[in-house]
């Protein structure tokens, strides 16, 4: 998956949003819960992978479907963000694609003249 953002914050938000968007129809997801996402990394790629891991765990571990993300603070080794959504309800939500893991395969984050570009491969 390739992700773009005008800023690095937007890149991270868009990448996390893509997880929820691939998994389900986010229009059916209401905002009733909020969770903080904190991750560390050795560089931007590592940070993005670790941030997405935490975001994915909120579904795989806590059963939350999330579609609304914000970044509170970020530098190449550290990110704090927030995610909002609601618990997965099999009667109202349909899982289109299961994302099982975020991998390091060909992970990439680059700043370009027009913004930021990222690439992440999910295990589905």
């Amino acid at each position, binding site marked *: 998956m390739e992700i773009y953002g005008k800023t690095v914050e937007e890149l991270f938000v868009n990448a996390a949003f893509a997880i929820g968007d691939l998994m389900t129809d986010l229009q059916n997801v209401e905002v009733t819960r909020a969770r903080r996402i904190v991750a560390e990394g050795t560089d931007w790629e590592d940070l993005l992978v670790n941030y997405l891991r935490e975001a994915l*765990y909120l579904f*795989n571990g806590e059963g939350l479907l999330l579609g609304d993300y914000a970044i509170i603070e970020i530098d190449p080794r550290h990110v704090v963000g927030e995610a909002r959504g609601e618990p997965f309800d099999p009667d109202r939500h349909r899982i289109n694609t299961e994302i099982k893991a975020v*991998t*390091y*395969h060909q992970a990439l984050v680059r700043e370009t003249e027009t913004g930021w570009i990222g690439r992440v491969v999910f295990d589905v």
Partner: protein
Amino acid sequence: MSEIRLEKIDEYRWMIPPVGGMRVPGIIYSSEELIREMGTDESPKQVANVAHLPGIVKYSLAMPDMHWGYGFPIGGVAAFDMEEGVISPGGVGYDINCGCRLVTTRLSLDDIRDCLQYLVVALFRDIPTGVGSKGVLKLSVKEEKNVLEKGAKWAVDQGYGAPDDLEATEDRGRMEGADPEKVSTKALERGREQLGTLGSGNHFLEIEVVEEIFDEAVAVAFGLEKDQIAILIHSGSRGLGYQVCDDYLAKMVKHVGDLGFPLPDKQLSCAYLRSNQGRDYLSAMACAANYAWANRQMLMHWTGETFERVLHKSPREIGMRLLYDVCHNIAKIETFTVDENPPSPPLEKGGKGGFFGKGGLGGFSDERQVKLCVHRKGATRAFPPGHPSLPGRYLKVGQPILIPGDMGTGSYVLVGTEKAFKDTFGSTCHGAGRVMSRNQATRASSGRSIAKEMAKRGIIVMATGKGTLREEMPEAYKNLDQVVQVVHEAGISKKVARLRSLGCIKG
């Protein structure tokens, strides 16, 4: 194909000569046709990448069902020296101890023909399947840790099955060295409600009929006969195993930077087996392996209950019996005999009985017994007759090997051989192997009803996930007969029986 040079050794083996940072050659078991079909698949490059890892012994191997994976290829086998070698979570895979168990019955096809549909529907109703499916249990953390330590025995102690089942499970369903303290809170949390669930993706539970027997004597020892009904269960360690892999990958990506050797791919991150990091992963991996064995034990028990509800006969009355349970995503410490002084030059082709030396791994001169850590990622153990790890009833014939196919085909039962022990660290293939990614399969099956196509072929399939059947359509996989023929002809396992699918439930 990737820019990797493949040199044909014989009809069923290709070598990747060691270049650059490769410490040993790569050897791929395949056939002309399967090599051709591989197309642009990058897995040969991954075989070469694995050969870069420190302490790798003899060669980086791949089985004929090889296809692209994260880090290691699926179908990859690599053994590492306990002192100089490494352990890599990517060499085991995300679904730790994903595996199969085959349950035989005394029923014949005629006995269930009229109620097959009921059986499949009832299994689909009774066995939890699908993404994030929850089981009937919600374990306390304390109880979950018991599962992680005891494996299938925990399930048997709780009344799911009988002690005899443990005899017929690889490692008796319990891997040594499991330490739940090495498993993260996140992994424990993911595992609490998923024990006794099939999962999604390629996992399935299938009713099959024995269609053909290839080796009568071994089939008798395995309790297999033509027209017999059997049940194949394919599942793993669920979210817990995924989280263990993910946690330790993250740790090792950090750790490997300090070790001073370059890695061609971050997904190959690893730690020395002798290090604390390496030992911790092995302890956590053993926990996930044990969880998977308990999981399959419970799935089998519930399958018996469902058959009883539909047929009004107890599992005992229909002769349900676990033939064997194998894992195909695992790293294990096993003892082999290694020829200390391979003939010079060491890469000479041929050699009687093995690629290196007179007897390959099990040579008869200058040999010594060594413990190695064998990674099997999408590969199955294939131990020969007489190996002390085999249950008594299979000691004379060798280890049963279960090879699941795609849902339209069925499966094979093979038996382990001395040649596998000598040449492939006692390993063989694990399934058909994908030729299309899930996305490609979904696109290629656009507008088709796979369930209807299967029904036309006489196979009833039911799945929870909307896209599962399309992702798992038969064309997405290699031809199982071709894959099995390679390992049979190459002698790293022998065909015993072929089973045909009748009904299948998926996640």
